[in-house]
């Protein structure tokens, strides 16, 4: 008998299809525990769920049954549903090969096999916005409910981090869900093969060590940043299966592939250079980065609560003026209420900074960050808190995202082009081997979501505000300090790269390119 499919399988499959292969056919001993950041976030999620339930589901019932005895769990859940309770918490819904445990089953009027009422499934989540994998979990329960109560719920719902309810229509989304379930069954039953593909999802995956080791052993194409699943599949079809194959691709072979229209030469060229960087373990310049010359610059690490669309609780700032003089400041808010003041102080700080040389793009000293001051983020902060419009515009318009620049202009010998990845090959500051993503494939997306590559800023912040334990705050400040140094170092490296590229202008296979002109 094949093991049952759970909503968690569906959730993970949507993030990476290889998780299903490993869940059903892998060696469980190779799976590792979540790292600190994720663990803290999971705990946080549980607390959020518990407090929401305590507030909103006081008269709901919870089925009681012997642990992992799903048949008994189902019977107890159905009893409660038949009796018409207003809601069931952690009910058990099973079928021949599926087990589901929705957080919430809410009673709605309208006939079903249960009587004049039926139930709607929902889950409590601690993200700010609903994601497909969460929606699909609820659809998983909806399909089970259809069987068990003889009526498909008309909608499903998610409770988000801010406590609001997000509803979605079930019928229109079911075709996608059914296809997903069919694919998972195929993997489980007929052994359909999937391939590992290192991506930003791996940081939060239990198989990350296993997959990383295997990828390195096999020199998998996904070790190259910028090679997506589709491109990797396409390359494999043409016999390019490893980093080495791609790195050693001859011009002639490349031309043949381009002629056969497998991949254009404009794509193959940079990919081959990225592959070479990975193969040799050294970075390679792809194009001259547009980085303003040192020393002047303001380096900023900013971090906000991913559950709220609002302010940031941390701004760590290092300003270096034209003579090389440094000024440091760290602004940190203990409570959301303080974030407004913090933003205003940050903007004042920007206003007070030296004007520097005016250049085409900059009205003052350039501001560097690694995603924390992305235009959309600062828009959100400004619209929540208001503030000096001129300083805000400077931050908004002139911020230079060094991580993005790195990704675009340098091929790095790591599976992601994050700031963390950069420090791991630069051997410079920040390579402490501890943060999220350290030694883990493609941690960047995870990091970006939860507070930057150098710390689990957000979960630490949450721990600090909940417990008042100063150790958490110290961790935040120390990590921010490291990140600032990494930013500074990255900027210098990018500038050097730009100078080198200028001496030897970057060429593409299509010919020589100048910055703005025609060839």
């Amino acid at each position, binding site marked *: 008998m094949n093991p049952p499919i759970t909503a968690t399988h569906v959730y993970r499959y949507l993030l990476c299809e290889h998780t299903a292969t490993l869940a059903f056919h892998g060696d469980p001993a190779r799976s590792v525990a979540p790292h600190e950041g994720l663990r803290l976030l999971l705990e946080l999620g549980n607390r959020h769920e518990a407090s929401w339930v305590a507030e909103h589901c006081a008269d709901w019932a919870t089925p009681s049954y012997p642990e992992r005895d799903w048949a008994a769990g189902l019977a107890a859940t159905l009893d409660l549903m038949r009796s018409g309770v207003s809601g069931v918490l952690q009910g058990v819904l099973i079928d021949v090969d599926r087990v589901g445990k929705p957080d919430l089953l809410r009673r709605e009027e309208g006939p079903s096999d249960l009587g004049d009422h039926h139930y709607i499934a929902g889950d409590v989540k601690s993200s700010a916005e609903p994601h*497909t994998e969460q929606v699909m979990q609820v659809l998983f329960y909806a399909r089970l409910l259809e069987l068990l109560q003889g009526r498909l719920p008309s909608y499903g719902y998610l409770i988000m981090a801010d406590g609001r309810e997000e509803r979605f229509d079930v019928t229109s989304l079911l075709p996608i869900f059914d*296809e997903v379930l069919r694919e998972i069954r195929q993997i489980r039953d007929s052994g359909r093969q999937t391939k590992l593909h290192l991506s930003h999802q791996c940081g939060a995956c239990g198989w990350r060590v296993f997959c990383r080791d295997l990828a390195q052993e096999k020199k998998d194409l996904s070790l190259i940043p910028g090679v997506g699943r589709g491109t990797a599949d396409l390359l494999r079809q043409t016999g390019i299966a490893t980093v080495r194959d791609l790195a050693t691709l001859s011009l002639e072979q490349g031309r043949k592939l381009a002629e056969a229209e497998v991949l254009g030469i404009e794509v193959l060229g940079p990919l081959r250079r990225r592959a070479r960087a990975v193969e040799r373990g050294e970075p390679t310049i792809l194009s001259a980065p547009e980085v303003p010359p040192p020393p002047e610059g303001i380096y900023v690490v900013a971090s906000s609560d991913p559950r709220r669309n609002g302010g940031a609780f941390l701004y760590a700032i290092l300003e270096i003026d034209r003579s090389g003089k440094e000024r440091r400041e760290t602004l940190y808010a203990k409570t959301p209420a303080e974030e407004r003041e913090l933003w205003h102080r940050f903007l004042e700080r920007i206003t007070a900074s030296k004007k520097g040389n005016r250049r085409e*793009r900059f009205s003052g000293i350039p501001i560097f960050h690694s995603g924390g001051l992305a235009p959309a983020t600062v828009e959100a902060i400004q619209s929540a808190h208001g503030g000096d419009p001129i300083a805000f515009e400077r931050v908004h318009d002139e911020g230079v995202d060094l991580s993005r620049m790195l990704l675009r202009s340098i091929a790095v010998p790591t599976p992601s082009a994050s700031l963390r990845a950069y420090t791991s090959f630069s051997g410079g500051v920040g390579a402490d081997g501890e943060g999220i993503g350290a030694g883990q494939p493609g941690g960047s997306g995870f990091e970006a979501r939860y507070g930057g590559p150098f710390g689990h800023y957000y979960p630490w912040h949450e721990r600090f505000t909940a417990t008042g334990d100063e150790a958490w705050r110290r961790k935040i400040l120390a990590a921010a300090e490291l990140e600032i140094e990494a930013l500074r170092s990255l900027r210098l490296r990018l500038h050097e790269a730009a100078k080198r590229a200028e001496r030897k202008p970057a060429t593409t296979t299509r010919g020589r390119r100048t*910055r*703005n002109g025609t060839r």
Partner: protein
Amino acid sequence: MREPIVRFLERGRRAERRDLRDLHLKPVEERVADGSAIAGLRRIEQRGDAAVYRIPGTATKLRPGDACWLSSGAEITSGRPVEIEEIDLGAGVLVLRPDRFADASGPPPEGGVLDRRNLDLTDHLVRGLEPIFDDERGRLAGADWVRRAVEGEAELGPRNDRLARAKEAVEADALTESQREAFSAAVAARELALVQGPPGTGKTRVAAAVVLEALRHGEKVLVSALTHRAINNVLAAVATLGEKSRGHRVFKIGRPHQGAELRALGIESRTRLQKGAVLPGEGMVVGATTFGAVKLRRDYSPFDLVLLDEAGQVPIPHAMSAFAGGLRGVVVGDHRQLGPVVAGGGTGDPMERSIFEHLAERYRGRIHLLRESWRMNAGICRFSSRFFYEDAVVPHKSAADRRLQLDEGGQYRAILDPEKASVWVAVDHLARRNHSREEARVVAALVRELVSHHGVPPAEIAVVSPFRAHAGAVSHELARAIPEAAGALIEGLVVDTAERIQGQEREVVLYTFGSSDRDYLSRNAEFLFDPGRLNVALTRARTKRIIIGSPEVARARPRKLEALRRAALVQALWSEHIPIEQATPECDTIRVRWEE
């Protein structure tokens, strides 16, 4: 009300500025590939102060009326500020005028690179809105209804005298039932009427009838929209329909875009309207863009009626600034087709919606839907009606059974079969992002057969793609497949994005996705599968719709809920074409492995 509007406009201004600056830092090839620049201009002729250039036929985002720089391509902002008067990619011709406000001397450049220029009209717009923000001024100007309208409190009920007039007038006009209802409501409304015109349901016809009826009673009407093209359509319909418009003056404010055509219809082009242009009590129609309307108001106001067309594309503040010049409004549009282009959009700010979508929500159940499509046959109409109009739109009886006229034989008969109004040609390819040669070849072969074998006029065919790059790939393949491509054989054929073809129709439309990288599709689903874009692309054809796409398109799984809903729509489109005989007899999926 002022604050969210100004915040929205300011954000747009910033995003536009930032986007343009980043764009101008890119090499010229990238700007061209992105569609925001045209390289290789060559001056061939001078017509008055307008210069005519020859251009390569690559697809572009640039449109008539756009402000641009004409430069060497390197130092963009030290180039010549110009405005596009006309752009015809098919013929490879571009007409530029010097910018009205810039003082440039010397002859126009011989050639160069044309880049988008930032024309920041935010302050102009905000000034135009001040009377509405200020209660007292609004009341004095008779524009206090605008604020109520936007807040959902306008009077939609009829004024009895006007209703009687409308009933009387409608007898004479050959309108369908839903058109008659909409007409009466628009003519009689006290302050505001909403008319939703799904594809091919004759909204311009209704708009013109409303204008004519107002003229008949000596009213002054402002016809406004975001684009000159939309305004000209309504004015032209007024002029051609109007026995009754005879004796009334019809003006168009702004650049004489399509000037000759308008003049032939007796429409007078003006840069501004002189006071006393018409006598009191005499009817008059003035066409002006929403920006032009702000300036117009200084010369002339108030109008008895403001008719806003293509309101599904007009942002809320722009619409309000046009309304401010009138005493009541008729809003014509469709929020189920392409929405407004918003710089720095995607933030979830409700201001990003069009005025039509906003009002449709505020006045739910009180919109007048035009229900009969004169354009689409039954097989083409069905999907759009079901998924965008709750099954309310039906083909008019003159269109329902229309079929594509083909000659005997042909290599691709199964695909072109007139009995299959809609087919999905499934082309297997992998990892294509924004263009696919495989699909481009299929398109080229089908167009060749339609034109060369069956004699379908090229001007009756459109190829639509979500990607400019894919449209480029299709043009390239067409040139290979039909060596006469540059000549008459495919003149008039449109190969472009849905944005370009909104409001138009063709006998045959090929919609080609050009993408098969599932991750890429998932990441970009919100844009690619935008329901408005999809609806426009799927409703341009009269008798034959051919969808060309990899099955991967139907397997996108984006992460955001809104994008997932959109992906589900494409999956439904795919399912519609799986040949289940009873369900959709006119739709079919044909899987091809294309061998040349």
